[in-house]
């Protein structure tokens, strides 16, 4: 399997060879930042088209077809429109917080994007507490949403922000517990180590029953974390117009919009990291020929393919299910999902202690 580390090492050696080390690191940081932002934009554009085409497919429609072949250029037109739109400032808003909020949301999702295992040798942030870091950064996004709702001086946005706060804080518990279940199994929180742990087989198969339960809990909690249907209460358009981002326009609205789509990709990426092996190809112990064929597919394709597949499932939820109500949503988390994830964590601990796994 091709190791992208060869490229990065070559680039590093090239820079170190002709300049002092601090400058080389600075240039590398800048290059990576640009690459991350570029990836972010391209992925967001792809996801917008992806969802529009998928939902059109579910709804017996064609989706965007006019701009470019099969509407492929539609998203670029949309992006251009959003970039040239006026940033409307409103009376009675808290100016500073109002403008700060979209940046908090987008920053948290960019940082999370950098934590994902893109491919062999393509790891940007790699800590020994990687999973904790991801969970911590994801909470900054909630702050942005709360601030946006509060500073807009609008009743809809305030209710949207309150719902969002209640929802994201609640579902973060299940989300965290589901991930910790896998951490218990893997014995590490380091992202690249987690991927290499799955070389033999993916955690979903190695951990079998508790891992599958954790996977299902994760998918539900992640849907809620990203404020997507059926948990899209914070921006329930039929009740609260657009919820917390009702008053935003132009690129500030665009930031919320991009962050929403990118968060979908990020939670799918984390799911693929924790349950489906990250960039690791599908390996079945003993089937060496099969494994060799799987290894032939580039690692980045594996990672993106898994993430897109999980996103497909989450998009499928959104366009099929009606929206839940706030009390039902909270009851579901606190009465069913959280006790279940705690029990599952215990089950996993027992399985690990007794060695009942592959």
């Amino acid at each position, binding site marked *: 399997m091709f190791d992208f580390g060869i490229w990065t090492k070559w680039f590093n050696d090239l820079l170190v060879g002709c300049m002092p080390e601090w400058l080389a690191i600075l240039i590398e940081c800048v290059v990576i930042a640009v690459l991350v932002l570029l990836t972010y934009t391209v992925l967001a554009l792809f996801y917008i088209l992806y969802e529009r085409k998928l939902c059109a497919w579910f709804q*017996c429609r064609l989706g965007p077809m006019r701009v470019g072949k099969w509407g492929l250029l539609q998203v670029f037109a949309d992006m251009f429109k959003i970039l040239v739109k006026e940033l409307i400032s409103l009376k009675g808003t808290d100016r500073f917080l109002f403008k700060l909020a979209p940046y908090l949301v987008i920053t948290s999702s960019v940082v999370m994007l950098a934590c994902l295992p893109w491919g062999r040798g393509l790891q940007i942030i790699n800590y020994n507490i990687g999973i904790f870091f991801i969970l911590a950064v994801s909470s900054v996004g909630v702050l942005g949403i709360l601030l946006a709702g509060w500073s807009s001086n609008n009743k809809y946005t305030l209710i949207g922000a309150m719902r969002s706060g209640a929802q994201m804080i609640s579902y973060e518990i299940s989300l965290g517990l589901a991930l910790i279940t896998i951490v218990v199994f893997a014995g590490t929180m380091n992202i690249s180590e987690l991927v290499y742990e799955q070389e033999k087989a993916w955690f979903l198969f190695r951990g079998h029953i508790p891992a599958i339960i954790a996977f299902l809990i994760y998918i539900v909690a992640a849907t809620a974390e990203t404020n997507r249907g059926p948990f899209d209460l914070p921006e329930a358009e*039929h009740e609260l117009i657009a919820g917390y981002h009702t008053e935003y326009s132009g690129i500030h609205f665009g930031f919320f919009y991009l962050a929403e789509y990118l968060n979908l990709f990020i939670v799918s990426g984390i799911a693929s990291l924790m349950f489906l092996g990250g960039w690791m190809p599908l390996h079945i112990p003993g089937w060496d020929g099969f494994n060799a064929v799987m290894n032939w597919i580039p690692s980045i394709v594996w990672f993106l393919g898994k993430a897109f597949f999980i996103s497909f499932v989450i998009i499928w939820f959104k366009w099929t299910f009606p929206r*839940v109500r706030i009390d039902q949503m909270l009851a579901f988390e606190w009465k069913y999902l959280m006790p279940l994830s705690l029990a599952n964590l215990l089950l996993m601990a027992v399985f690990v202690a007794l060695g009942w796994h592959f």
Partner: protein
Amino acid sequence: MSDIKAKISQICPSVTFEEGDCLLVNVPEQDWHSLATALKNDRELNYDLLTAVVGMDWKESLGVIYYLTSTARNWDLLAVKVAVTDRKNPMIHSVSDLWKVALFQEREAFDFYGIKFINHPDMRRFFLRNDWVGYPLRKDYDADPKLNPVRMEDEKHEDDTVSFVEDENGKIKKIPGKVFTEDDYVVNFGPQHPSTHGVMRFRAAVDGEIIKKVDVVSGYIHRGIEKLCEGLTYPQILHFTDRMDYMSAHQNRHCLCMCIEKALGLEVPQRAVVIRTMMDELMRISSHLLAFGCTAMDLGATTAFFYGFREREMVLDIFEKTCGARMSMNYNVIGGVIADIHTDFVKDVKELIRIMPERMKEYHKVFTGNVIAMNRLKGVGILTKENAINYAVTGPSGRGSDWSCDCRKKHPYAAYPMVQFEEVLEKGCDSYARYMVRMREIEESVRILEQLVDRIPEGPIRAQVPKIIKLPAGRWYQQVEASRGTFGVYIESDGQKNPYRVHFQSPCFNLVGVMDICCQGNMIADLITIGAALDFVIPDIDR
């Protein structure tokens, strides 16, 4: 009839009677409230349903005609006329304490005629702004645009209300009040809102997510249809009906045509009768499919919306081929229909009948059976049978409260006596019951179409009508079962070629009347669910 007359004169000796298409009781204002109490509470009379409240201006006097129905007895109508001669300060006792539907209906009469209702708790205008000058449906109304210019500023004192309370000595005191208290956190929905299905406005006082009170603010699409009718000839007023509840265009127009035909004593050819009935049922299917789609979409299930629209498209295609339009079809005319059915009509209707059963299964699979949808609909927006009758909530919403109120059964008209169909009733009294009534009514409508599609008789499509249609002096009231409930038309004629007064009793008007009692104690999200399940159409309310 004669025993009712005897009974009423026994209760209130000062009344006089007039015969017409139904019995009319003339009652002096001072006796009206006691007679009303007796009419409602007397075991034999038992007029528990206030069908219509028609404000009137007879030039020398102002007044109201109340149409009452006894649902327990035989659904016959009784009209009661109350008139006062004081044009400066006309006052009539409110019956909103007996029939809650009068809460909104009397506000409409106040808005248009300036009749103040004594003891009505909330005497605000209903459609017009509170700074409107004059009462537009009065015959001496000054329509000078200088008096009522297009106002560019917000309505002031929106929260102020007033009631005229009578004390023990018979003195009437004006008591100001407030709609919401200072402490209420009022969230505004509409007039521009994705889920009010039009330019409707609700103001909801909320406690967290729980709704404490809903105030309905209407009139954003008010066009003054009733006033316009008074200046036009009978064939000219027909097209207004298509523009009220546009999802019941055929039924509404059918009703108006029937009312005029009744006044003229006109016999409609059998072919036209059957075609009208089929069009009514196609309209009902299209309306209920839209209701299904909108309920699903308001709950967030956007995909189901498109499924409903896919089949609705077929119905609209049928309309387009025969009537030349997909909305505002303008199909019924006095004495029949305007054009014969298209040659594909029978084939297209048969195709619709063929596919509907399997499509219904698909709807139930994608939406009804979903656990989230069930949780969102069940137990939400409870409307008991007593309240449904008291607030005159007819149609699928009333039948969802287990109240048998189908006009097609109670006052059979057109081709309905010829066909077998079941009146759909659900016992749930909640949004789910209302939703299910609609779904099952689609099946019943398909059943009616199935029975009629091969039985369209040959013959003329229109009766011979005079070139200039003049109704004899008198008053007529006609009801049909529209998609959302009982639709009524009141016509009063003084023998001219244009009507003296036309009143449209729209079902949706009563539907918004129960928004407050249905929403109390529910959540903000339920306001949308309840609105979707009641399924009101705004132009029908505002007219």
